[in-house]
């Protein structure tokens, strides 16, 4: 039976979609069968980040409304044989779907896939309720800023109220240089405030911008962010991996000659 994981944050722009794309890709690289569902109806963009925009024929709302079969709406990622995307509808809004319908959809997909990743919209309204309805586990993404952390706190409270079985934290876009100067919260600080278990720390990496623009997730390649996302995937499937040393960004050559 597959596991349904919702990726959520409360605040917008902290990296939910990027995380969904990369965690999905990473899990597919670990030979798990994965489907990504974009639940942000009306503001779809997971397809763009995945580079699959031009292959959308049917979408989530079509499946829910019975205009097509699930199989017809799933887009197969040509790079990975076991990665699929169920895109969102762009011409509708969040009210087109109800939490019960999402729950049913998740149940239908469980038999087929190892992991069902739900990309949640920002906010706490119906879109959020839809996305978390069928989930077994939640990954809460936050950046180390007070605004994002405050919203994450609210989201965790709502998840607890909905009796989410597991809630894990991803600290995204961490800048170690700023943490060192004392200008940014460290991941430990964020964990202390939010009091939930950490599952990954992703450094601020400009490769992410490049990868997003190219529509090619970087999980598993040799960038800091790529490695960080891969570690998160290992932890999701239950392996114990040590945290990256985010300071080891520069090669030894640069360390000696780079910054004096």
């Amino acid at each position, binding site marked *: 039976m597959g596991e349904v994981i919702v990726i959520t944050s409360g605040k917008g722009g902290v990296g939910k979609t990027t995380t969904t794309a990369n965690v999905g890709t990473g899990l597919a690289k670990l030979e798990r069968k994965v489907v990504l569902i974009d639940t942000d109806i009306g503001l779809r963009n997971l397809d763009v980040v995945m580079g699959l925009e031009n292959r959308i024929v049917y979408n989530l709302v079509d499946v829910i409304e019975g205009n097509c079969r699930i199989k017809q709406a799933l887009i197969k990622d040509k790079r990975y044989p076991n990665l699929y995307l169920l895109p969102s509808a762009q011409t509708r809004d969040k009210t087109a779907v109800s939490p019960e319908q999402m729950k049913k959809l998740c149940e239908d997909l469980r038999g087929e896939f190892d992991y069902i990743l739900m990309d949640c919209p920002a906010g706490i309204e119906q879109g959020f309720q839809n996305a978390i309805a069928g989930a077994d586990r939640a990954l809460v993404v936050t950046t180390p800023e007070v605004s994002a952390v405050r919203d994450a*706190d609210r989201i965790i409270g709502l998840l607890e109220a909905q009796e989410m079985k597991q809630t894990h934290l991803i600290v995204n876009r961490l800048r170690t240089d700023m943490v060192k100067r004392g200008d940014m919260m460290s991941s430990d600080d964020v964990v202390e405030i939010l009091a939930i278990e950490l599952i990954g720390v992703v450094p601020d990496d400009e490769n992410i911008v490049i990868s997003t623009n190219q529509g090619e997730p970087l999980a598993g390649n040799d960038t800091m962010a790529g490695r960080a996302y891969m570690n998160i995937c290992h932890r999701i499937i239950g392996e114990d991996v040590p945290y990256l040393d985010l300071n080891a960004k520069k090669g030894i050559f640069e360390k000696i000659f780079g910054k004096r």
Partner: protein
Amino acid sequence: MDNPVIIKGNNHGITVILDPAIEYAKLREYVADKFRDSSKFLGAAPVVLGFEGRALLPEQEKELLGIITESCELRIVCLVDNDAERRQQHERTLNEKLLDLSGASGTFYKGNLRSGQALTFETSVIILGDIHPGASVTSTGNIVVLGSLQGQAFAGAGGNEKAFVFAIDMAPVMIRIADYLARSADSGRPAENSRFFGKQEKEDPKKAEESRKMQIAFLEDGQICLEPLNKRVWNDIRL
């Protein structure tokens, strides 16, 4: 009078101010409309109700009460008449009853309160966990937080001026005791700024531990005081 029926809140309930000039039959309808419209706002709290502005016959009073009960969810505990002396006596009795209830008994609550969560207790409360910024706790009695208090706390919500708020780590945005209110200083948020952005503190965990303030908040001469726990404070606390 522009408005034939005015609802005013006070510490213990509401006062309904009635227009003395209009016919009683009309007034009845106005009362029903007013309470129906405000039913959502008023909620289902137990209240003490009083009529003002117009002399009512006992049966009229009874009838209006019936109309109000039908039109909204309020539970009317008792009716207070216009006589000031008697009213004070009623309030005193109610107050004492509330104080007895809230001071003498407590509730344990285990868990963190996160942003957006609000809890209300009809007794004193002991919280085994943290109250995060954006969360709030209200109690008619005392509030004891065995963790950090970074949100809002409202003790003595029924008007109990002896109520206090205690926290292992006192860094609240706002504290209210009875009718008084105190908020944190404007210069930055103590919880987030000093603790998480202070570099020295981080290098010295002992110092960070010291910066947590175990304090008690109570009312003194119409002001909310925050003080570390000591014998003098204990002597001043009355349950």
